[in-house]
């Protein structure tokens, strides 16, 4: 009896088996790789905002300190998004007819908040606290990047748990003097590790890796 399948079908069968094995092994690997891609983490993608607020202009050109607007950062878990009335402190006087600021004026007049889109989004089971980080020598730039160079803010850090732990296990690699917290361009005059170890001892910085540090 003639063969039911031609000879080349052996190759097809082997190919299919290899493909299935590859798929079974590769798909989880691919998925695990994919969740770590900047695309999935939202890293480096500027977010559209209802107002074209330009951090580069306000920080670099005008020299406004981060804490003028994010005023709760030293006291509260959240740094605080400024209220409309804070914007109007200046923009009641300058650029007070600019069409770019129409949503701000509308918010101020109606009392309805401006709905900003969140850039740095942590899962709901993560309790990050700004106050303790800036109070113990972690600068804004360490997590948020050079916001002073961003026309539209985007997420610089991956914000994964591994990334958090890198610093929580060895905070000395990122510590800076408390008076340089909001300085976007600060660099240590000596090797960072040397400075970091010294500050770690001075500020009593601990390596906080127990789960309830962040998960409650």
């Amino acid at each position, binding site marked *: 009896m003639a063969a039911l399948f031609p000879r080349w079908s052996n190759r097809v069968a082997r190919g299919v088996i290899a493909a299935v094995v590859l798929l079974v092994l590769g798909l989880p690997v691919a998925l695990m790789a994919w969740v770590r891609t900047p695309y999935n983490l939202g890293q480096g993608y500027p977010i559209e905002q209802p107002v074209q607020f330009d951090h580069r202009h306000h920080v670099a050109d005008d020299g406004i300190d981060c804490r003028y607007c994010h005023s709760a950062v030293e006291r509260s878990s959240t740094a605080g998004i400024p209220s409309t009335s804070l914007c109007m402190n200046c923009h009641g006087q300058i650029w007070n007819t600019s069409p770019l600021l129409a949503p701000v004026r509308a918010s101020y007049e109606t009392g309805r*908040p401006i709905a900003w889109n969140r850039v740095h989004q942590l899962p709901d089971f993560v309790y990050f606290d700004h106050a*303790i980080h800036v109070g113990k020598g972690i600068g804004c730039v360490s997590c948020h990047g050079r916001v002073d160079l961003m026309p539209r803010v985007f997420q610089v850090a991956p914000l994964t748990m591994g990334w958090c732990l890198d610093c929580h296990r060895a905070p000395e690699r990122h510590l800076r003097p408390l008076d340089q917290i909001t300085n976007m361009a600060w660099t240590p005059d000596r090797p960072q590790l040397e400075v970091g170890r010294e500050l770690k001892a001075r500020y009593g910085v601990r390596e906080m890796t127990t789960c309830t540090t962040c998960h409650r």
Partner: protein
Amino acid sequence: MHHLPPLSGASGLTRRALFEWVGASLALAGVGGCAEPPTEQILPYATQPPEVTPGIPRYYATSMVLDGFATGLLVESHVGRPTKIEGNPDHPASLGATGAYEQASILGLYDPHRARALLERGQPRAWSAFLERYGLAAPRSHRWAAAGGAGLHLLLEPTSSPLVAELLGRVRAAYPRAQVHFHAPLAPLSPLEAARRLLGRPLLAQYDLGRADVVVALDADLLASGPFHLRYARQLAERRRVAGPTDGMSRLYVAEATPTPTGVLADHRVRARSAEVHGIALALLAAVVAALGRDAPGGLAAALPRAAGPAAHGDQVRAMARDLTARPGAGLVVAGDRQPPAVHVAAHLVNALLGNVGRTVWWTESPILEAGEPSHGLGPLVDALRAGAVETLVVLEGNPSYTAPADLELPRLLRGVADSVYLGLFENETARDCRWFVPAAHYLESWGDARARDGTLSPVQPLIRPLYGGRTVADVLAVLAGLAGRSTYDLLRETHARRATGDAAAEFEAALREGLVAGSAFPRADARIDLARAPSLLGPAAAPAPEGTLELDLVQDARVYDGRFADNPWLQELPDPMTKLTWDNAALVSPRTAARLGLANEAVVELACRGRTLRAPVLVQPGQADDAVSLALGYGRDGAEAVARGVGVNAFGLFLAGESPFFSGGLALTPVVGREAPPSPVMPPARRPARHRLAVTQPHRSAQGRAIVRRATLAEYREAPRAAPAQPRPVQTLYEPHRYEGVQWGMTIDLTVCSGCSACVVACQAENNVPVVGRDGVLGSREMHWLRIDRYDEGDPDSPAVSMLPMLCQHCERAPCEYVCPVNATVHSPDGLNEQVYNRCIGTRFCSNNCPYKVRRFNWFDYNADRTETQKMAMNPDVTVRARGVMEKCTFCVQRIRRHEIEARIEGRPAPDGGFTTACAQACPTGAIVFGRIDDPRTDVARLRRQPRAYAVLEELGTEPRVRYLARLTNPNPELT
């Protein structure tokens, strides 16, 4: 051959197409899981209030009012949204503690079943329409407007509010013939009536349990109900908290029918039917007079009424009397609010004879408006309704259609009133019987004021604007008084300013800040007991009920009160402190009575009493007085409250007007025989006792011979202060010991002062976003409480020694749960916490199986899935809301620990030095739960752990828990042991 009928509408779908669709939906369901979470939005304030910082909670002082009495509270608010209630430490009714009602009231605020619309005969109306009809300019259409108010009746709950008093005065000034009535089913009328008879004035007795060496509570649940129960619990606990073998303890005698938290703490608990308490009070008085002998006022002994038969419980009563007389001026006899005035008279006489008056007990004016006057009670209103003399009836809060004595037939009479208005939180039974319905504001949405039991003036300030446009009693009274244009806030300030001694605005601000007006408690009234007249007020003691007849006992419910909290799922699921019953009420009978009548748990019986009948399931309650059948009021609701509807049976059906509405003899109890579907068509339907399953969280009370609760008498403790010696087996382990560094946290629970009141359970639920599973969930043992209170009975099952054991995660230093978790989702922290990491948990439940304390709870379903937007507002933002499939348990309120740690470290302190505690410890009225640092030997918790009576539950397992219990001490009278 049977042919199955075709499924209707199924003809268009072939088998193949069905599988295609099923396959496609499954595939798509998987894809749906890949969707990114939506981008969150941040909504900052348009104008940020200067005092608010997002992320930092604020606390405001306010007061919760129950039947007219205020309890001072501090309410936590996150950016304008109240989330948690704590006691106000400066307020006399709270002393920093809270009860279950206060804790759960935060959920009541966000109840999705609250009424939202102003209605006239079910049709939505605007507030302006209401104003037009009842405001001063318009009510010319009413005949009473021209007749000086004749035909206008107001029905309120008892109130102590100066603002409401002022507005009622204005309404009366405008309509002098208008009539005001007050009604609340559980309002304490009897004590005031007793005072009126004995002292000539309806004064309110005030107690100081802290100065009493001997306390006798005659059917008085001093520690868990009534307006000052938090204070009394604290005072009693301070006298019973033993720090060392030389310390003394006060002694507590309780006579009651059904066990209460007060009875749990009693050194001697007399099981007495409620009707017997009168006889006990008279016997106690007679025994005290006899013991005083010649010191007793002349002629008193002869004037006392003779008991009709041999006094029951004679030995115990005589021992009580000797104990009381041995400590003149340091004893206290308290009669319960349910008891008739004669019992109160007897209690007061004992106190007066022994010189306790002025020391442990004194009188003040009652803070309740028109206390002791005929306006309290429904009699005059019902007469007017029956006579057709009511043109307009304005019902302000309460739920009289449900709570009025059944024989008054108030619902029918209400429906007969052409023009009636009801202000209420829910469209309940009363709303249905009234023409107009006005949604009420919750107390957390209201401006107002009230007085505490001792008269302390306590402001009520809103934490949030009314969610559903609710109005307060003052708002509606202002309309009737023609002040509709004025805000209640302004009226409150004016009322307050009239009382001010200096700068009115500053005093008002201070009152709001502190939650009370300092020094506003009433002074002691100068009251004289007329000893000559007193014996005539004692009434004849009822003849002992014939053997075998039953007594019906209607009791206040520890969870829903008089039914007003029945829509609160936290309270419905709170296990009753004594019976551990949830989502139901039941007819409680003693084991002996149950055996005599052949009843078992869950059997449905028909209660027939005073010509009315009611069906209820039976629950056997060890410690219940024989032949007394207790049934909690407040269930069987029939309003629009979806949670409350159909839960339990309505005991108000047996609640009848009269001198003692709460109990009566002559109860007949018949088992109900139901028709049960036969197991096969050839068998006839069986007639067997009808059964109603009861969701009880702890079906048995035995410790199985293990020393889970360690008990000793004070005398035994003095002899051998160490709690029963522990014999921990040497524990061999392959695991490395944990590395502990820095601050170490721990807890102690003093079983000597834990009454089992369950305030901590609700406090934990509120703080930690603990979900509710419903009756079916509890029946499946799936309740989620992180903290439960176990009840253990010892000794005679009829009259057991009851101990309460709050059980929560023990934070074992060698935690069995940690060893078995395959994914490291439960681990140990360097400061001694057993941590549960929800985002790692995959739900194997190995940890729960390996936990000897059974304190781990598993989310079988997504209990938080269908929360409405308002319900979400009740959530604590500092605690993760858990999803389906993860294990959870007590965290020692780690969110509070970390918050205070961060605060301390920012300020440069190495660690928090007190200033906070866990939610359970903060709520605890008796201070039984103490939490803090055990690494610092000066803290309370460290001192308590060093006490010789400290022990760990199941310490023989070598788990080395961070929670230590202090053995339960009692101080029985040596005469009676």
